[in-house]
């Protein structure tokens, strides 16, 4: 096991893959679970582990709750470390297991 890196389960891989589509866009839990294709409500342990490992940053939505009629959301975004390490972890997993999280690297490493 490598230092403090989170275990890469299927679900964690799906979350990372979804976040890596637009790494700089902040998203809240429901959006992430929808994009990762996971049942809503099941991803908080994953987000927690990734955040504890320093792969994710999180912050509160800045809204007037009374005016919006709903409570503020917690937004997540990949950290620089998370973007790099997440990409590496997915590629390694995809080569090891070919689970289809990523398209197979083209000849000459065509993937950006």
């Amino acid at each position: 096991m490598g230092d403090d890196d989170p275990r890469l389960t299927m679900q964690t891989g799906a979350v990372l893959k979804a976040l890596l589509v637009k790494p700089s866009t902040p998203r809240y839990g429901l959006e992430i679970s929808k994009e990762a294709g996971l049942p809503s409500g099941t991803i908080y342990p994953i987000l927690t582990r990734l955040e504890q490992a320093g792969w994710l940053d999180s912050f509160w939505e800045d809204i007037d709750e009374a005016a919006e009629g709903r409570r503020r959301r917690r937004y997540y975004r990949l950290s620089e470390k998370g973007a790099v390490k997440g990409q590496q972890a997915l590629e390694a997993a995809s080569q090891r297991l070919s689970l289809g999280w990523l398209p197979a690297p083209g000849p000459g490493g065509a993937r950006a």
Partner: protein
Amino acid sequence: MKLFLGIVGTIVVSVVAAEFSVLAPWFAERLLRSAARILPPAQRGRYVAEWLGELDAVPGQVIKLLFAVRVALRAPATRRGLQGLEPLWVALVRRLLVALVTVALAVARFASRVLVRMPIKRPALDGVVVVGDPDQPAPSILGAELDTPIEELDLAPKTHSSLKRGGVITIGELVTRSEGDLLNIRNFGSRHVDEVREKLHELGLSLREE
């Protein structure tokens, strides 16, 4: 353990309440607050606020409850995420338990399916007298057959018209008459009675016993 029982209790109560979708969001919020109690105190506030913010974004009353149930079920995993890696033996025992529960649920689901498919054995109906020839195909005694007009019996024209005159329109009405009833119809003789008996017998039916 008390906390765990508390969570399970809240889940059960919540599921029952799903019938009343108006109450569902309220139960969902209770459930989330109670689930957060297993998190380290320092993190509790943040996760309650985060989950409630998500809850407001979940569409649909009952779906909110479903969301809360999922979050609550995964709350122990969230706690592990906050506390870092657990000792190896704890992880192994936990996975073993999860595997056992999964297998047990699968077996239960399979068993319930088999039980549902099993035909229910009905007690034989005592005292039912089967009329007609038992070697004939299932007699057409029941239901729509009885509404069939007597024309379908293909009786001789004279027999037919006499029956009509006697007020017998359908096969159902015919089988409620006895031989004596029929003989009371004008111009209806035992020859006609025999013909009717024969035709009814072909259908597995008979006249009413006197």
